[in-house]
């Protein structure tokens, strides 16, 4: 066992602290080229990561950068700087610590490149930017350790893929570089280790004591949850009761809109005026900072929040976590539960609040999974190529490069270990010439080969490439603020599409307030306060998660039980009724019910494939039904089932599920689909096909900017095999479209379809009838909607007349 050097052991002793075994282990194995630490929240993970650095620097005269710390959150970098500065000052160590994020001043950033601190705390995007400068080698000279915090979160996104490419670059600049990843508990630590390690080097895993099992249960309410819908409003009295009984409660929701609605109603029932706040990613920064400060000061009893509080920062004395709505994913639930009780070795306390009857079953499945330590995870697939294209452009900004050397570097990054040379060359060709079937840009290549090395043809391009560094491409957001005469106070942000749907007088929720839309001024949505009116709900979306494969499997296992003593009576009665009236879905076959109700014919498919896949299934099946003359009218999808209605009964649904035909339908459907266009936009921005819009640019550049939808349509028409379309397709298949899970579902059931023809609606299908988000099936609807609106307006203006000409 490595003994701690004196100043450190004294410092720990003075505080009455023990060095945790995993902190010891990281110190002892500090020489490993790559190391992954798994530790629960509150386990002293960050200190474990930094301890070897502090020990190495304590007795040395190291010049320049020694350790680079990377976190997914800017706020986390600043927070760690404060926390780390304390031991450094108290032990009087010769260590300079600085952070560098998008918020760091231009002057300071320039100075940091010339004279870096010993420890630099930054984000993946800031690192990529630093690597794009010609002086990168000098900036990073002497760097010997990299700490990647919250690597489990980064490994799930393109930000992580970009980071791993950057680490490969750093590894070439600093051959002795050692990597440490800090992760929460995950289902497959091996996958994260492979993600982090310089391929093919091994990456040993150090697992900290996971601590005691959490104290987790379902919240019991007097009123049973509703049949359908989300939000958990029915549970507000019981939740307020829990808030009263605890010091600080975090109330997690799956989407921002639901958090807003819940918060609004919570306040209406908060008779004791308990100090409760709301925190989510769409709030104005000022509002978020205020909530965070109040939280740290311990002056809040509860915070209604979303994923924006999922990561890292230490939030004072939270002693209860409430998850409203089914958790959808066990791994994330466990991480959220960890937000309660930051004292190591004390159990975290959590309550699950199912929002409807179906979710009761899912919550029970989640409780079982948490107790069994059975985490879920969908494998992420190989590193996306749009990120690689950006990396190639960034490399060219820094210096002319050799393609063979860059390829070797790229495949040393975990996510790109399986990349073929042909795939790499296609990305390089895209960066150099656009990669079009029509060779139009021989003269105006972006990258040119000169003396065997690729370089920018026009050095001015470097600035544009740097402005577009990063892989976060949230949809266009507009600021929401009170009108000037009400104080111009910023309240938050909404998506442009939502803002466009508003007309003056409309009301919506933001930051827990009902506001009235007044108008759009430049890039700001101007509002006034509107008390006591029912809001038109803000649809700005959080991520819409799908219930994981593991949770779905557990739900099917629960349904296979002969009885359900663990479930509340209202839910076990419901399951029993379904078994009597129809039957329960089973593993290994696909249950489909067909029944008439209210002059419509219904088809209910219990696929348990998650919301995105069930939604796609609905689109594909109705398309097939349309072709077969079965007159579908619409459908609705949940995580568990798709309900389709139409004019004709479907007596034999088996032919509808022919996989090759479904896939062919998918190809056609994808073509003009909004999901694809949205995905294409993200891919095009990341890959550098089109610059992201910068605020301010849009004010003047009205004719200069045109939508990426136009580029998508043009490519599909003239260059359907183009790299960007392939990348878009790959991404959509994994994400919003989730066709992979439809294939899994069909394979899981071995296409064994069990059809039940019934003469009335079934207990399981009934709640689906009340679901919101019904999708109508229509062909020429867009034109029809437009025509109706136009005719109405013409009539109102007294301009109705026979259409001339056409």
């Amino acid at each position, binding site marked *: 066992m490595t003994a701690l050097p004196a100043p450190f052991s004294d410092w720990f002793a003075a505080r009455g602290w023990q060095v945790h075994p995993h902190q010891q282990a990281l110190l002892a194995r500090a020489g490993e080229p790559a190391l992954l630490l798994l530790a629960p929240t509150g386990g002293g993970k960050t200190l474990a990561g930094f301890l070897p650095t502090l020990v190495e620097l304590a007795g040395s005269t190291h010049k320049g950068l020694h350790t680079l710390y990377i976190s997914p959150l800017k706020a986390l970098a600043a927070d760690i700087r404060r926390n780390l500065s304390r031991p450094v000052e108290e032990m009087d160590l010769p260590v300079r610590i600085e952070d560098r994020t998008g918020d760091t001043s231009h002057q300071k950033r320039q100075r940091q490149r010339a004279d870096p601190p010993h420890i630099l705390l930054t984000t993946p995007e800031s690192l990529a930017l630093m690597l794009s400068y010609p002086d990168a080698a000098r900036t990073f000279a002497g760097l010997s350790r990299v700490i990647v915090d919250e690597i489990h979160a980064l490994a799930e996104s393109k930000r992580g893929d970009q980071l791993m490419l950057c680490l490969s670059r750093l590894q070439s600049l600093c051959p002795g570089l050692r990597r440490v990843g800090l992760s929460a508990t995950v289902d497959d630590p091996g996958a994260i280790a492979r993600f982090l390690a310089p391929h093919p080097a091994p990456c040993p895993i150090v697992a900290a004591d996971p601590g005691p099992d959490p104290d987790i249960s379902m919240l019991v309410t007097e009123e049973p949850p509703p049949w359908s819908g989300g939000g958990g409003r029915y549970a507000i009295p019981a939740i307020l009761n829990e808030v009263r009984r605890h010091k600080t409660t975090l109330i997690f929701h799956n989407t921002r809109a639901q958090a807003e609605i819940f918060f609004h109603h919570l306040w209406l029932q908060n008779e004791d005026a308990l100090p409760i706040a709301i925190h989510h990613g769409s709030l104005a920064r000022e509002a978020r900072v205020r909530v965070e400060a109040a939280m740290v000061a311990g002056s809040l009893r509860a915070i209604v929040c979303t994923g924006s509080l999922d990561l890292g920062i230490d939030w004072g004395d939270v002693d209860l976590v409430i998850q409203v709505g089914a958790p959808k994913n066990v791994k994330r639930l466990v991480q959220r539960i960890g937000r309660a009780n930051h004292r190591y070795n004390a159990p975290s306390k959590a309550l699950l609040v199912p929002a409807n009857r179906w979710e009761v079953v899912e919550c029970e499945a989640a409780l079982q999974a948490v107790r069994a330590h059975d985490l879920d995870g969908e494998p992420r697939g190989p590193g996306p190529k749009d990120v690689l294209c950006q990396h190639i452009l960034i490399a060219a900004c820094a210096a002319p490069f050799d393609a063979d050397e860059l390829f070797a570097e790229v495949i040393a990054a975990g996510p790109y270990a399986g990349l073929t040379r042909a795939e790499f060359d296609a990305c390089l060709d895209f960066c150099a*010439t*656009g990669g*079009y079937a*029509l060779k*139009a*840009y021989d*003269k*105006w290549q*972006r990258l040119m080969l000169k003396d065997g090395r690729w370089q*920018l*043809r*026009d*050095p*001015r*391009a470097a600035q*544009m490439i740097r402005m577009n560094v990063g892989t976060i491409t949230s949809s266009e957001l507009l600021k929401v603020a009170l009108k000037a005469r009400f104080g111009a106070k910023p309240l938050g942000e909404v998506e442009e599409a939502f803002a*466009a*749907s508003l007309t003056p007088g409309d009301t919506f929720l933001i930051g827990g307030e009902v506001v009235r839309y007044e108008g759009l001024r430049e890039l700001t949505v101007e509002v006034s306060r509107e008390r006591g009116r029912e809001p038109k709900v803000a649809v700005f979306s959080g991520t819409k998660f799908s219930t994981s494969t593991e949770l779905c499997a557990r739900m099917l296992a629960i349904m296979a039980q002969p009885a359900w003593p663990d479930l509340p009576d209202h839910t076990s009665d419901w399951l029993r009724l379904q078994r009597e009236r129809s039957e329960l879905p089973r593993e290994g076959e696909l249950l489909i019910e067909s029944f008439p109700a209210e002059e419509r014919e219904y088809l209910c498919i219990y696929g348990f494939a998650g919301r995105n896949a069930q939604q796609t299934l609905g689109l594909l099946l109705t398309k097939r039904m349309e072709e077969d003359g079965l007159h579908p009218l619409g459908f609705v999808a949940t995580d568990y089932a798709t309900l389709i209605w139409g004019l004709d009964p479907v007596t034999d649904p088996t032919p509808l599920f022919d996989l090759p035909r479904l896939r062919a339908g998918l190809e056609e459907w994808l073509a003009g689909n909004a999901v694809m266009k949205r995905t294409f936009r993200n891919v095009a921005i990341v890959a*550098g*096909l*089109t*610059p992201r819009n910068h605020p301010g640019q849009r004010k003047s*550049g*009205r*004719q*200069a*900017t*045109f*939508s990426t939808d*136009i*580029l998508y349509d*043009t*490519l599909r*028409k*003239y*260059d359907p095999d*183009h790299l960007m379309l392939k990348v878009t397709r790959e991404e959509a298949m994994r994400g919003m479209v989730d066709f992979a899970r439809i294939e899994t579902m069909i394979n899981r059931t071995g296409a064994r379809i069990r059809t039940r023809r019934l003469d009335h609606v079934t207990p399981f299908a009934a709640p689906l009838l009340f679901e919101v988000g019904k999708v109508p099936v229509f062909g020429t609807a*867009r*034109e029809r*909607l*437009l*025509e*109706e*609106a*136009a005719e109405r*307006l*013409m009539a*109102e*203006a007294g*301009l109705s007349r026979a*259409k*001339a*000409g*056409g």
Partner: protein
Amino acid sequence: MKDIGGFDFDLQGVRLTALPSGALFWSAEALLVVSDLHLGRSERYARRGGALIPPYETVDTLARLDADLDRTGARTAICLGDSFDDLAASALPEADALWLARMKAGRRWIWIAGNHDPGPVDLGGEHLAELAIGPLTFRHIALPGATGEVSGHYHPKVRLAGQARPAFLTDHARVILPAYGTYTGGMAAETPELRALFAERALAVLTGQVARPVPF
């Protein structure tokens, strides 16, 4: 004559047809007007060290123009300016230049100068700052107070039922055409600078599958 569809309206006693494609047709003169083609936009971006966007907008724009000329049987074609994204972009690839030459054959062809292409281009046809025919004047940028004016430049768009579409804007004095080019964005019709050019009661004609009038 073929049924060309579109929406008919009067300007200074002249009956004009706003086509769903964004072209304007004066059937009495067999005259077709298009504005803001922005041919060669992708080439210009690439030349300036910007992004290499798909180089197909010229082909796409010419194909639509060819179809409109064919459908209307126009004997005169007027391109209302910003036909090219800049003067250098008017050096079209050979195949595109030949296609344009075929379209021009047998009809009068007029290039009106725009702010993107202020000078003559090295392609056949007449090059004019503006042109008057009968009671109508054709120019690139609308002049406040003008009457009988047909212009472009602003790329007007109108949002209806959640969809933004390029649109013609007209009152009794003038019409402003939508941008015809494939790679063009738009300016909201209610933008003060654009709205101020029109009388209180004005009409927008949305393009798309059908030319659709709405008050604006």
